């Protein structure tokens, strides 16, 4: 009994006390941050679907650091850095989340599964009703992505890293995950976390941007919904098939993303009820759950404490801010083209955080004019934003991979 060290029994605390002070402080901060994410997710301030599993994962993984050998510390959750076959085989048998990470994360499958689910809940009819205005807005709303890229290079990031963080401007979580896995695998954890954190904040921040940039008088503009054409499921399927094939031909590197999204859309429109239920339920929510959980578990202090993280935080914020401004500029462009009949607030929906930004636009407009309904136009811009973000992802991956 005399030689027994009580800390040997509680190894999470032993590694906290005996480890590198910087890492130990990082672990405590990340545990607190994890608890805060769960609280804010449960309160609905941040996106609960991502933040609750992510927060639990963050708190648990930073607590559960143990001695793997006499000198080596680590966890039995996941080892994101292992790539050689023999250690990978060991990791697959030891770390309980390693199979999910290796077989769905590191090859981008989880992003595709989320995209399939998003496709299954997306009505592309909105974009078919007003294709040119929707696309013009979506192109403008990529301003943040485009401006962030050279800024990130100027701040010292490599081209690949800069492309991965600038895609945050597209406000599409799976797209950020896909790009960072393709171009900057070593930074995909902090980049994806920054992306999902900020995407959760768009709901709170964009209303202020709208009020700042669009005067009350213009926010109340009522848009014409009577003359919008009705779109049949056959037209939606034809559009999805043709667009998917052309985009795959143009950008094979993003073929899995295009196929996943349009497959979801086609399943929805073809009315195969069992498949629709499968994609919009187990596939979408299952993959979102594991996405959140694995992102949290990947937030181990030793992985996340990277000097580049501060730059990523600044660049992510800049990208989303500029995309929001770009979207509203697009809204103004359509306002002038339509000679005052188009509500410029729709522009914010070009930032493709489906359907959050469309809802934000509708909510802000209804605060000024209760009878103004712009949701179909906003959803059109929203879905177009998904397509433009996928195109930009594809171009970056093709040019820089």
């Amino acid at each position, binding site marked *: 009994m005399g030689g027994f060290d009580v800390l040997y029994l509680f190894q999470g605390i032993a590694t906290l006390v005996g480890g590198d002070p910087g890492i130990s402080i990082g672990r405590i901060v990340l545990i607190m941050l994890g608890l805060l994410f769960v609280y804010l997710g449960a309160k609905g301030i941040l996106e609960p679907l991502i933040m609750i599993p992510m927060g639990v994962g963050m708190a648990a993984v930073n607590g559960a650091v143990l001695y793997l050998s006499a000198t080596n510390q680590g966890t039995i959750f996941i080892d994101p850095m292992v790539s050689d076959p023999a250690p990978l085989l060991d990791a697959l048998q030891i770390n309980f989340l390693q199979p999910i990470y290796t077989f769905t994360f590191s090859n981008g499958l989880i992003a595709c599964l989320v995209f399939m689910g998003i496709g299954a809940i997306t009505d592309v009819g909105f*974009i*078919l009703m007003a*294709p*040119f205005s*929707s*696309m*013009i807005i*979506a*192109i403008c709303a*990529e301003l943040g992505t*485009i*401006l962030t*890229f*050279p800024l990130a*290079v*100027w701040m010292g990031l490599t*081209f690949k890293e*800069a492309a991965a963080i600038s895609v945050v401007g597209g406000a599409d979580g799976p797209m950020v995950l896909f790009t960072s896995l393709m171009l900057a695998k070593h930074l995909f954890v902090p980049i994806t976390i920054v992306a999902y954190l900020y995407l959760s904040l768009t709901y709170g921040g964009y209303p202020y941007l709208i009020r700042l940039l669009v005067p009350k008088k213009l926010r109340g503009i009522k848009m014409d919904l009577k003359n919008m*054409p009705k779109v*049949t499921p*056959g*037209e939606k399927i*034809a*559009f999805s098939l*043709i*667009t998917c094939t*052309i*985009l795959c031909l*143009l950008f094979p590197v993003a073929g899995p993303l295009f196929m996943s999204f349009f497959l979801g859309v086609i399943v929805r429109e073809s009315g195969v009820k069992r498949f629709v239920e499968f994609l919009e339920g187990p596939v979408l929510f299952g993959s979102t759950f594991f996405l959140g959980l694995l992102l949290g578990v990947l937030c181990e202090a030793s992985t996340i404490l990277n000097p580049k993280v501060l730059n990523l935080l600044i660049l992510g914020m800049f990208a989303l801010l500029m995309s929001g401004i770009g979207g509203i500029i697009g809204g103004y462009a359509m306002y002038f083209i339509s000679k005052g009949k188009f509500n410029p607030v729709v522009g914010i929906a070009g930032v493709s955080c489906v359907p959050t930004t469309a809802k934000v636009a509708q909510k802000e407009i209804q605060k000024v004019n209760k009878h103004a309904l712009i949701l179909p136009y906003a959803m059109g811009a929203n879905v*177009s934003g998904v*397509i*433009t973000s996928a*195109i*930009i992802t594809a*171009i*970056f991956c093709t*040019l*820089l991979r």
Partner: protein
Amino acid sequence: MTGKLNLTSWEVALITYVTCAIVSLGVAGIIKLIFFAIRWKGEQQVKKGVQ
């Protein structure tokens, strides 16, 4: 500069944006074409029915 293409960051950004704009507007054009084709076919069938 990129290794393969010898481009500056601004050039990459510009190429990306212009390509994205062209392809996106092309997609919008496809949508219009599909609409016209399907509507035109529908109208033809209605005309045949009337005759």
